[in-house]
């Protein structure tokens, strides 16, 4: 209440509300709504008015006594988006007003529409009513409309047991010691990391492992905005890192640096977890962090 004695609050209210007779046409529509059906009335010219009126607005003639069930689905012809609903609005969350041409109707119904995502709103979208639990014969027996079902979510989950054998087992044994193991193809003279048993280019066997430095250069990177269990936070950077002396980059996280400071050519070093926590897993490498050396020109 205002505190100024010269200002008063004045309320205009009809306690309990007005009692209004509906007449036969609107009464039929509201009775059908109570039974969870939407009907229109046919005009002498054969158009179906929804909601029904007693007189055809196009001609002024009384409508016929013929009612046609329409919808329940319809097509949005125009809409408006309410970011901040008022107390009297049908929904207490952001929603759209829409003009909806129900299937079988020649006119459009005004109602609320919850599209889920406002970006989904467009003229031509198909919508269906959501009914109130206890209809009473009122326009709000339809709580609101929602978009037609056009997609479902299907969950897929299968479990596997993966075992590191062969070259991967050798590589991870190196990781457990805090060393990146690679291998050189004697024919191609290329150094691959992780270690592999044969050269992917020429197929020659690579019998020996090669201990590699844990420093390298970022060749390219991505700023990731979706959470990943391995990443410390969102957004995070994943990068291709060309370890020194190698010819093939490996993928790792970049840390200890703001995401927008990461750049191509940046020098980085692996950050290992403390020795006591190490296992035969890439989790040993927390991420790569900048060394502070000058950037490298990438060829």
């Amino acid at each position, binding site marked *: 209440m205002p505190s100024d004695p*010269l200002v008063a609050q*004045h*309320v*205009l209210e009809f306690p309990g509300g*007005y009692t*209004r007779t*509906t007449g036969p046409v*609107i009464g039929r529509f*509201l009775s059908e709504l109570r039974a969870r059906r939407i009907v229109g009335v046919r005009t002498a010219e054969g158009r179906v*008015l*929804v*909601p029904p*009126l007693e007189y055809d*607005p196009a001609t002024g003639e009384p409508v016929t006594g013929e009612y046609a069930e329409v919808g329940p689905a319809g097509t949005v*012809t*125009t*809409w*408006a*988006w*309410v*970011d901040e609903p*008022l*107390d*009297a*609005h*049908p929904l207490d969350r952001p929603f759209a*007003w*829409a*003009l*909806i*041409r129900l299937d079988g109707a020649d*006119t*459009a*119904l*005004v*109602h*609320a529409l919850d599209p889920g995502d*406002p970006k989904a709103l467009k003229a031509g979208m198909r919508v269906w009513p959501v009914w109130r639990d206890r209809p009473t014969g*009122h*326009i*709000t027996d339809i709580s609101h409309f929602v978009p037609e079902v056009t997609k479902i979510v299907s969950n897929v989950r299968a479990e596997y047991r993966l075992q590191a054998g062969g070259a991967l087992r050798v590589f991870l044994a190196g990781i457990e010691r805090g060393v990146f193991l690679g291998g050189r193809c004697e024919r191609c003279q290329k150094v691959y990391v992780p270690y592999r048993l044969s050269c992917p280019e020429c197929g020659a066997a690579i019998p020996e492992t090669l201990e590699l430095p844990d420093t390298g250069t970022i060749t390219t990177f991505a700023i990731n905005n979706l959470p990943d269990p391995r990443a410390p936070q969102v957004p995070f950077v994943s990068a291709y890192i060309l370890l020194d002396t190698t010819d093939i980059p490996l993928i790792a996280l970049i840390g200890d640096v703001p995401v927008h400071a990461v750049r191509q050519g940046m020098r980085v070093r692996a950050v290992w977890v403390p020795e006591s926590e190490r296992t035969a897993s890439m989790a040993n490498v927390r991420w790569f962090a900048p060394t502070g050396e000058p950037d490298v020109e990438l060829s």
Partner: protein
Amino acid sequence: MREVAIVAFAQTRHTAHDTGLTEPELIAPVIDEVKERTGLTRFGFTCSGSCDYLAGAPFSFVSALDALAAWPPISESHVEMDGAWALYEAWVRLQHGDVDSALVYGFGKSSLGDLRTIMTLQLDPYYLAPLGLDQLSYAALQANAVGADRKELDEIVRRSRADGRSNPYALDLPEPDGEDFAVRPLKRTDVPPLTDGAAAIVLATGDLARRLCANPAYVTGIAHRTEPHYLGMRDLARSVSAADAARAAGVGKGPVEVAELHAQFPHEEILLRRALELGGDTRINPSGGPLAANPVMATGLIRIGEAARRIHDGAANRTVGHAAGGPCLQQNLVTVLEG
């Protein structure tokens, strides 16, 4: 048809806040001003336009008669519509031939309540009002149906406010900025300002008009048309009733130098320009229009008064005043004025 002219027009210096004046106190100065300007103290007919829901008091227009000097009894009528429709009734009354002058006024204080939701009360009580459909929401529905270019809408608001700043009766509103939405696609700057105000016009016929005013603004055409109330029964992207009223009033029979349009939202101006077939030569709302001052129930009458003023002061020879009522331009009244 009897020749009828607007011979005097007055309006309050509108305010964006409640000054605490009663309605008679708000009206009395403009009534006094048109009386003084015409020298008339009694009129053959009096008609006003207002809306009781603005003040939330029944028959508030009856108490407003205290501003008039209504004793001995006067011949008086009222429309629960914008004062422009009171002017129409007065024009019809003058056609009867037995009286030669009429006083018309419109007034409203939007500051007393929440206009946006008070406007819900004008909607049909079965299908629309129970949804709580409010003034900005239905205007936004129409704005989306029109689908006008955002730059064009922004320019209308900018021009209206700039013109309003040079109109001493309109509000001083800043250059529009900000991208906030009221109800999308309506921006907050697309919404007319809440305004309190009043206006009065004197109509006179034939010789009396020429005696009372150096440059009477003759009503050479006046007509109003309505559309179905329910929004879903109409094509909101067009204003059929405004086009019909404009044709009936004869807007297209000559060049229109100035058109004062009762466009409360910028998309309404675009709709009305098309409906009235106004070309680029016509100056729209040089007063600033409703986007610069919107004293509801007087706004439409002021459009006609502003259109007449251009003729009174010799600035124009043929002008158009337009008024609208109801949700989404349901009713439209078009007046053609000539010097």
